[in-house]
């Protein structure tokens, strides 16, 4: 088995199994540990300039990846007209840079503030560094290998679908430049890291807040309340 087959044919499955099994296991065995582990209470201003750009940037970029993954042909058709391609590429770059800016701020904050250092675990450092590599590789791809949005839809998406069909087509990625390969490997590393880090917080997105009533009353003896 070649290295490429290991990294792009086997590792993705390992990552997905890990994320499913460990996340569920962690949820049921140690729910207390599910938290955003916010450190805003100890330092607020720099967090604002880190967390807000980071999250808006990364969520839009991730959303873009997801949409293109679901409807690659539509994206290719959209990119058929040059100005539409530029709009897409420039927005992707802008949000990517926003995420990078935020991430650098978050890393700087963790490294320099003694209070924040006190609530930084090894996994926090690992996560932030992997994210940094991932974002830099992504931006590198956007800037130096034009036009990413098109060949992502043309190469990466078919590769991911081949994974889903359980017949990984490694040839689709093995010819790609190093930085792109790094980006793909980084993505699955993050999937694998998710249950071992604070990244579990993104599974806790409390959507039910949208429809639940403001007040929550819990009765110990439910049957005793007839209405």
């Amino acid at each position: 088995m070649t290295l490429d087959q290991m990294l792009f044919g086997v590792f993705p499955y390992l990552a997905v199994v890990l994320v499913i099994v460990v996340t569920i296991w962690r949820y049921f065995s140690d729910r207390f540990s599910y938290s955003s582990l916010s450190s805003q209470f100890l330092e607020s201003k720099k967090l604002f300039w880190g967390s807000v750009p980071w999250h808006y940037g990364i969520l839009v970029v991730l959303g873009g990846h997801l949409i293109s993954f679901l409807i690659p042909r539509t994206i290719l058709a959209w990119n058929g007209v040059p100005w539409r391609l530029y709009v897409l590429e420039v927005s992707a770059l802008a949000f990517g840079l926003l995420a990078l800016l935020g991430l650098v701020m978050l890393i700087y904050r963790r490294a320099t503030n003694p209070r924040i250092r006190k609530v930084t675990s090894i996994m926090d450092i690992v996560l932030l560094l992997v994210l940094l590599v991932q974002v830099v590789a992504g931006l590198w791809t956007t800037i130096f290998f034009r036009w990413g949005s098109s060949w992502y839809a043309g190469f990466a998406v078919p590769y991911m679908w081949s994974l889903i069909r359980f017949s990984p087509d490694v040839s689709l990625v093995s010819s790609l430049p190093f930085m792109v390969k790094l980006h793909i490997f980084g993505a699955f590393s993050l999937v694998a890291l998710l249950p071992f880090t604070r990244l579990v917080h993104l599974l806790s997105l409390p959507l039910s807040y949208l429809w639940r009533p403001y007040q929550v009353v819990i009765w110990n003896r439910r049957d005793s309340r007839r209405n």
Partner: protein
Amino acid sequence: MDVRAQVSMMFHLDKCIGCHTCSVACKNIWTDREGTEYMWWNNVETKPGTGYPTKWEDQEKYKGGWKLKSEDSPEDKDKIKLRASDKGRGFANLFHQPNLPTIDDYYEPWTYKYNDLFDSPAGDDQPTARPISLITGEPMDIEAGPNWDDDMGGSTVYAANDPDFADLTMAEKKAFFEMERMVFFYLPRICNHCLNPGCVAACPSGALHKRGEDGIVLVNQNVCRGWRHCVAACPYKKVYYNWKSGKSEKCILCFPRLETGQAPACFHSCVGRIRYLGVVLYDADLIESTASAPEDELVDLQREMILDPSDPDVIAQAKRGGMHDSVIDAAQKSPVYRFVKEWELALPLHPEFRTLPMLFYIPPLLPVLGRLENGTYTIDEKDYFGSLDKARVPMKYMARLFTAGNEEHVRKTYEKLLAVRMHKRVEQVGDLNQDDVDGMLKATGLTVEMCEEIYRLTSLPTFEERFVIPPMHREYATELMGDPYTFKAETGVGFANKPKRGL
């Protein structure tokens, strides 16, 4: 009518001696862990003062509690919204909560490097124990601490910035700080276990809830995800963020103690015996309309929500809702019911925050009216109600605290307190005119019997009269049966695994 029970509280401020025993009792049981050093679920502030966290009452700064929607858009009337956020903004603010206080708004907790006193090598100087931050472990300069402004210490910085001075004119403010007239009193505070809690409403994860049977408001540590919106939304700043565990925590009204028939630690230990605890029954159907009432009706309407536990209709409805007889019985004996509803003496703190707080206060009479005469502390008894106009603390100030600025309302309470006092004075000292005192009673609507009962329950109550703890009936659904001290220095009460900070 939806009759529910609330374990409710009353603090008699005339009796508070500012000893902080309550705070220490609470800290020793619940907040002596890493991450909670700065938390004082029970704290005692000097008023006037800026309080804890600094200027917590200033909702321009902290954006806690509710406000009328009509303040923003006059057309949709009578409905309220959280000052800090609505549901949409709740999501937008997940990544950074703009109204979250930081630890510096409270104080950075510290200890001293005591070992240096023993381990330092011999030298010319005495070794000293330097202050060490309990967060970073580094040496630090102490800039603030709990009760930094106790007894008006540094009053030019602290007391002068009291948010409750908002309604006072410059001259009135100045008069407040004249040396000879200077006056202060204590304000002990715990979570109010509100009927319309902002903390519960703000939590996106639904981690906070009000217990149906007794109304205690809790944070479920297993559901909390550290979004910290509850901290921002509580106008009393009584939810605290544990910086170590990444979860929010708050006063639990010592429910493990209540469930075993003991008064909460701060109540039990109170040296001044200022604290009363008992059940009140209320109509939960009225929560929304009361919370969105015009400001000057808030106190009255909240009182109206509280139901007469001896009324057969109320009892029937309560039973239909599944309330146990023993709880209704406890409600009938509740000292809080008497002070709040029957005698209308106790008032909620800052009702204008619209959370419908269920901790009530009897405003202090002595420091407000008392003065120094020939070296003796005295009250101008002979002036009857007139003394209220000469009060050292303007009624306006007390109104800001307890009646959403309604001076007449707080004055009515004071007149009653004075009338009871005069009544006892005629009886025991006999130096006042009986007719005048009778006139005072008439004006305030008090009878001689009521005065006697108020006097008894204020001055001579037994332990059992102060704390009428309803049986919690955990035999029906056990959350915890056992000795609360088992969990001392732990987070929460009983986890299958040790609760430690997540990865």
